[in-house]
């Protein structure tokens, strides 16, 4: 059950990486191909972690 804690931090950290990406690309937020891939990876990490948390709490 403690997996939900690991996933919580994984999601928060992935969101923090996205936050950093916003800081680096403001004010246009235009992404390079590499940044776009990075963003997709982080978003998918957040989604997966939230799925686990939702499932475990059910």
């Amino acid at each position, binding site marked *: 059950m403690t997996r939900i804690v690991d996933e919580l931090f994984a999601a928060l*950290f992935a969101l*923090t*990486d996205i*936050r950093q990406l916003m*800081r*680096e690309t*403001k*004010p246009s937020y235009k992404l390079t191909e590499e940044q776009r891939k990075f963003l997709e990876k982080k978003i998918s990490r957040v989604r997966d972690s939230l799925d686990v948390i939702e499932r475990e709490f059910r």
Partner: protein
Amino acid sequence: MGKTANLDIREREEKYINIQPIQAAGRLTADAMKAIIAYGDGYSTCDLCLKPFRLDFIKKPPIADFYTELAEFVNMDVARVMPGARRAFQAVALALLRRGDIALISSLGHYTLALAIEEAGAEWREIPKNEDNILTAEATAEKIERVKRENGKLPKLIAMHHFDYQYGNEHEIREIIKIGHEYGIPVLYNGAYTIGVMEVDGKKLGADFLVGSGHKSMASPAPTGVLAMDEEWAKVVLRTTDARGDITGRKFGIKEVHLLGCTVMGAPLLGMMASFPHVRERVKHWGEEVKKSNYFIKEMLKIEGTKCLSEYPRRHTLTRVFTGGFDKVAKTHKKGGFFLTKELSKRRITGPFPGATKEWKLNTYGLTWEQVRYTANAFKEIAEAYGLRVE
């Protein structure tokens, strides 16, 4: 704008290009932000604080290692994390100065140095800057001689910045340290605007004390700073308690008196530690940051009425400018100086002192080339929109 509890969320760094002079190099890394999430609880650093019960001995999280690495980073024997550079000044002043002593500071020095000296019961005297706003070894020697002549004794301490906070100018720090030592006076190197952005080698400089600011230049939360010194000075400044309670007979082990025992704990310390590997790497790229600074100022100087009040070409990313053209516009604009603030804000740029159009400071540290170019173009665009000449 979102809220957390009753606080507005600070989203300045996510929404705006921020050229505020003192915030630039203290912006956190992603790793520091993560550390804050995980270590926000009060005594989070103390889960495994074992004998001898002192912060710099804690192995998990690896605080002891960090202290060692920090000393190596600035090439000094011993380092301590302090709650800001000001607390480092205070610890040195309290350890070295006594009532009636005199300490020398720069005429561009930070006020907290003056307060630290006053708190120790000593007096501070200023070393004058020259017409280019530079502190020289010659002026230092003259001031030492003057203090000696007028007071019959030498100053007990010299505290000097490498780059000052008012102009971001480089001062004759190596030569000033040498002069101090020729008179037998210890010198505190104030690296609030250097340690964490450029390579600083304490032994090469010959400084007795190095002081840095975590929240100004080490991508760290406030309040954080560094105090580093050699083994000999550590015996004085980091002396441990030897007092004993008259009723209980209590003693407090190896707590360092001038540091009031453990210093920075929890999220600020862990944030600083998390940023440290990035800081160690980024100091190698200082040259590139200075290039961006010079590019930006060069572009600003194309705007009618603009002058660089700092030394130019720039050797730092913090710069003081005079923007006479914008000031001329402000005199007739219904919003006064706030017209510039508003125009910048519309372009998602923030940082210059709100309402200032005449003399103000900026810092380009940490911006990408794209952001630097965008910001320079924005200033030129605003100038043109208000009828100022742009080369």
